[in-house]
């Protein structure tokens, strides 16, 4: 049933338009696509140029992999370690937020919590989601120092789970809403406990939701900058922090910065092509309903 709904949605995108656009519309779309793709192509070519070729602006140029080699294997670069940090933090925080967020969403939707609990919880997540994360960084810094967790991946995982929890709870809550309670009631009649009904009946139906929430949580954790900048030093710095360091040094290392930036976009590009329908669903769900 779930599958059919998604299929219908995809068909709608490919459907012929109600009103065929005129030439002005096509020109606008072409311009927009050029404006969006252009900068990506520019930084991609820059990443394959020697620094000197970037400075002289010569074209055509001799392509080189030296920037990538410098960034990934150079003796003065920690970038391989930064990638490892980012992967560990993004994977761990994604798994954790999926577990915590899915349980919370299910609990709020299915068990009759008093209004002040559910409204209070959802209202608080909404407020927290709207407030710039930098407002909480001061107390986090103090707390993690006191716990001896400053400059550890654990601190990053915990904070990333927290910032991704609101989105995960709303997304999963919206997905659970579409699963009729009768299905669980039938499972209960057949002798399932509430926990079994959740694990064996409801969760498999919510897999598209888990994928959508998981992809977004992973990407947001991978991209996250201000917390990583404030709560890490050299040891546990993530990819965005490393890129900022390339840009901030006295002599900006443009070529390396370009190569590191290109590497940092790989997960987004891959997930974009593998999971576009989940991403679109996830990004528009909260907004459209």
């Amino acid at each position: 049933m779930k599958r059919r709904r998604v299929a219908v949605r995809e068909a709608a995108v490919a459907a012929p338009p109600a009103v065929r656009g005129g030439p002005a519309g096509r020109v606008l779309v072409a311009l927009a696509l050029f404006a969006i793709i252009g900068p990506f192509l520019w930084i991609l070519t820059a990443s394959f140029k020697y620094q000197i070729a970037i400075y002289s602006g010569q074209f055509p140029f001799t392509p080189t992999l030296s920037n990538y080699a410098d960034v990934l294997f150079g003796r003065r670069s920690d970038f391989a370690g930064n990638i490892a940090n980012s992967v560990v933090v993004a994977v761990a925080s994604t798994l954790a937020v999926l577990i915590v967020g899915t349980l919370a969403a299910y609990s709020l939707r299915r068990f009759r919590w008093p209004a002040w609990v559910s409204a209070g919880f959802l209202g608080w997540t909404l407020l927290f989601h709207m407030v710039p994360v930098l407002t909480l960084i001061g107390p986090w810094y103090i707390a993690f120092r006191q716990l001896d967790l400053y400059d550890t991946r654990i601190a990053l995982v915990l904070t990333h789970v927290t910032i991704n929890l609101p989105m995960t709870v709303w997304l999963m809550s919206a997905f659970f809403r579409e699963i009729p309670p009768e299905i669980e009631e039938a499972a209960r009649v057949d002798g399932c406990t509430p926990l079994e009904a959740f694990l064996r009946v409801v969760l498999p139906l919510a897999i598209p939701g888990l994928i959508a929430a998981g992809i977004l949580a992973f990407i947001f954790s991978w991209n996250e900058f201000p917390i990583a900048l404030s709560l890490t030093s050299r040891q546990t710095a993530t990819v965005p922090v490393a890129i900022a360091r390339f840009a901030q040094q006295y002599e900006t290392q443009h070529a390396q910065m370009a190569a590191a930036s290109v590497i940092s976009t790989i997960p987004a590009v891959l997930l974009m092509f593998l999971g576009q329908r989940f991403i679109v669903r996830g990004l528009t769900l909260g907004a459209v309903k």
Partner: protein
Amino acid sequence: MQDALTTLLLSALANRTFRYWSLLPAVLLFVALTLYPLVNLVRMSVSTIEFAQGVEIWRFTPRANFAQLLADDALRPALVNTLVFVVVSVTIEMLIGLALAIAVAGLARGKTWARTAMILPILVPPVAIGSMWKLMYNYDFGIFNQALVALGAAPVNWLGSTSLALASVIVVDIWHWVPFVFLILFAAVEGLPVDLIEAARVDGATRWQIVWRIMIPLLRPAIVVAFLFRTILAFKVFDEVFLLTSGGPGTATELINLHLYKVFFEQNQLGYGALLSLAVIAAIVAFLLVAQRVTVAVRAS
């Protein structure tokens, strides 16, 4: 035997208390990492916190912190710049995003491809976007100045001149977030009742009439939602600007979040930073309350 019994008891317990422990982790996390920090923020905002050999020393200095709030020279430009940034970038993003949503929906082919390309800026790291544009804006070899010089014009100092820097930063934000507005409004356009538009077409309405008189009025709720989302997210801007200008030259692109970061981690003023943080949170809450009223009013009309 004993193990089996333990397992049985444990699973019975897990089942009986499922309702409670399913919500517990989320609540604990929020209490520990948002509610407790918020309380701590209040405590910090009336204190001066210093580190002596790694040991925190707290002093109660509410008056000094408030005095600093009034004497902070960078605060005024930060507030003004943030306001200009939010109003200008969100307005332009809404206009371009709406036009693009309608234009892409009118394409006969290639809608999915257009959408794929549009989503990319939302998903790549904002820091990468910052470094991308930092290269393109570069005075000596950036693409814009290369083009200007090729056309015989003088190069422009996009990020380094006081009068242009904020506009340059706003352009990057527009590039970054038009796709988000597009995505929400495109979904809404695709969801419009086809028969209504078809009927208007049969009655002889032109394309422009259909867009202005039928589509845009019907899209109004989605437009309001996209506008509110963008406005609130625009206040959170930090990453790209940190890379592009870090607030400079002078205070030309200083934004409230950059200022917060500097107060906390460059000036090491945790107490005053906490006071500023509380002020920002209060402003956001006030905005949300107004926004909620507006949404209710729009829904009602």
